[in-house]
């Protein structure tokens, strides 16, 4: 419990709901304001955050105890669904489990592609949108800041996002092992196969200097080049371009080897054995396997890329286990610190009363002490301040402990007893 309230998360995701239901429940940014109001009015949320992506629709909210049902009902009603049809797909988490769930989501431990980086951006965006609609307050603001910091820690302290899990990223990883920075690299795409396009997209996203495109017919090459903002080259000049590029992605429908050992040997010699990465995504293969044996040639086919992706996924799964431990630990800590924040108004009141009493006493004493130098006044001021600080130290600690364990009654008693103590002193 956080004071009289509880933190809950209610939603559905790719594990619990089919895509058509996720589509129906998805919330567009334009309608967020309407939903924040609806949640406040019908589900009694005090603070809330809506995370709507293609894989999940989740509401994180601060509500009065045992009112989380209201969020599910609201979601069903707002999207024209019966609660009975929705409830089997909905999950609800409370307290530290809700915090842990948010941390797992932001750290990409609950994503369809484990460790994908987009979700953190989506959580940040949801945070900004909720803030813009005034839906966040003194509990969820710090919770979301902590969420972003935990997600960043997970990414920096584990390998969750480091290894490739798709053909495109495997191609990029390979290219990086050979060339490091890809910004000064030239890429040649031979053929118009779908996988070839995907790999080239990934390479382009890393800022390669130039992309050349060649297909059997020059017109097709020109059309394909336009899609990528690339340059089309005639197939007859392929060899001379192979002497110049760093990476060649081969993805044609030819049924035979286009790049044979005999054809590649003089090309590699002219390149002075500068490395050439040949990514052969064609089935059947278009680059003869024995080209890989030549100095300077590195031939990787579709199975090799799959193997890199599989290894990457295995490594991410190992990293995910480490991340789960970190997230669980941080969730408990965060929830306790959120609870402790409910003591803040009580502590503020105590320190305010104490400060008022100190200043009153100082004023009273000023007449008795007569003329004091600024130094002497400073010493007395510091001394009384230190005395009151020590006096309040245990009470503040006690208030935080009571808040952390959710003992609102104890907190109220402490505040009352202290207020009367201070007031007695003042009178």
């Amino acid at each position, binding site marked *: 419990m956080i004071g009289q309230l509880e933190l809950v998360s209610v939603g559905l995701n790719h594990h619990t709901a089919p895509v058509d239901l996720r589509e129906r429940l998805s919330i567009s940014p334009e309608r967020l304001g309407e939903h924040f109001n609806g949640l406040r009015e019908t589900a009694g949320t005090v603070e809330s955050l809506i995370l709507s992506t293609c894989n999940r629709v989740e509401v994180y909210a601060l509500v009065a105890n045992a009112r989380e049902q209201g969020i599910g009902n609201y979601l069903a009603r707002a999207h024209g669904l019966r609660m009975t049809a929705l409830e089997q797909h909905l999950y609800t988490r409370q307290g530290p489990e809700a915090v842990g769930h948010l941390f797992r989501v932001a750290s990409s431990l609950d994503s369809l592609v484990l460790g994908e980086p987009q979700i953190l951006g989506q959580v940040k965006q949801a945070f900004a949108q909720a803030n813009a609609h005034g839906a966040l307050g003194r509990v969820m603001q710090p919770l979301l800041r902590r969420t972003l910091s935990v997600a960043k820690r997970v990414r*920096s302290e584990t*390998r969750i996002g480091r290894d490739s899990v798709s053909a495109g990223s495997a191609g990029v990883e*390979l290219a990086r*092992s*050979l*060339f*490091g920075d890809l910004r000064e690299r030239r890429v040649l795409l031979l053929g118009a196969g779908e996988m070839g396009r995907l790999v080239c997209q990934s390479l382009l996203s890393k800022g390669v200097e130039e992309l050349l495109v060649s297909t059997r017919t020059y017109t097709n090459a020109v059309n394909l080049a336009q899609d990528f903002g690339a340059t089309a080259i005639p197939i007859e000049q392929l060899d001379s371009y192979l002497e110049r590029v760093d990476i060649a992605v081969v993805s044609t429908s030819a049924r035979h080897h286009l790049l044979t050992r005999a054809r590649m040997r003089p090309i590699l010699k002219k390149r*002075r054995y500068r490395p050439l990465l040949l990514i052969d995504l064609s089935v059947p293969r278009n680059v003869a396997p024995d080209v890989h044996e030549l100095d300077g040639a590195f031939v990787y086919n579709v199975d090799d890329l799959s193997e*890199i992706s599989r*290894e990457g996924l295995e490594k991410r799964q190992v990293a995910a286990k480490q991340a789960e431990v970190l997230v669980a630990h941080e969730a408990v800590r965060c929830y306790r610190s959120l609870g402790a924040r409910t003591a803040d108004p009580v502590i503020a009141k105590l320190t305010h009363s104490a400060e008022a009493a100190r200043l009153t006493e100082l004023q009273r004493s000023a007449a008795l002490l007569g003329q004091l130098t600024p130094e002497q006044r400073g010493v007395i001021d510091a001394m009384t301040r230190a005395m009151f600080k020590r006096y309040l130290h245990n009470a503040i600690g006690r208030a935080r402990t009571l808040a952390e364990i959710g003992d609102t009654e104890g907190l109220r008693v402490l505040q009352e007893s202290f207020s009367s103590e201070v007031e007695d002193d003042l009178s």
Partner: protein
Amino acid sequence: MHLALLLVALLAYCASAAFRIAKWGPRPWVSKAGLACAVLAVLAHLSAIGWVWFQNGRIPVSDIGESVALISAGIGVGALLLQPKERGEVLAGVLSSLAAVLLGVGLLLPGASSQTDAVLSNVFFPIHALATFVGISSFALSFGVSAVFLMVRSRLKRKRLRGLGGLPSMESLDQLNTRCVVVGFLSLTLGIAAGGGWASAHGSGGLGPVVWITLVLWGWYALAVLLRVVGGWRGKITAQLSVFGFTGMLVSLGSVLLISQGWHP
């Protein structure tokens, strides 16, 4: 004091190598600890060399132990300077290990100079010694970089990418190797020229085995520079030239200098 500083340097090189090579996960403090140890090692090592230079008024190359320790210092400094833009941790660890091994060997080898001050006080001597040792250190760095290059290449050829994530790319290693070989070649050339001046100033007649071996090695590295810089050759062949060149240097010069107690005519 001198020995204590060298021992500190040795331990710090080992710690730096351990932090950087051991797979302790991507924790930022491991990387910082590795760098801190490398800096400590180089500072301690250079202080030890400075101490001897100040105490004895000469560069500490009077015996083979001191000479090997000086090469090791060059590698340590090089490991700090030669950081690739990305993924340079393991490479720096390998170079720190190389520095640690050479420093350890240097500490174990026999000491005691047999040279007179008159020989050492010649103006050509410090130029000859420093340039030659910078050259040899650069070739040692090039050896380390090339060894890592050949390992990366071999894994890419065998399609085993596991573990490559922590190593620099083949391209970065190739460029580092070129820089080391060019600097080493220019320094060795200067060292040989200054050595010639020193020999003629002392009326030394004839060329001893060390000089002949050095000239052969100079030719070897001249070929490497020619192929890489002028011919534009890349990859395995230039890396192999560096590995075989330095191995040959270690074996030939090491054996001759051990027999001659560190000095050559």
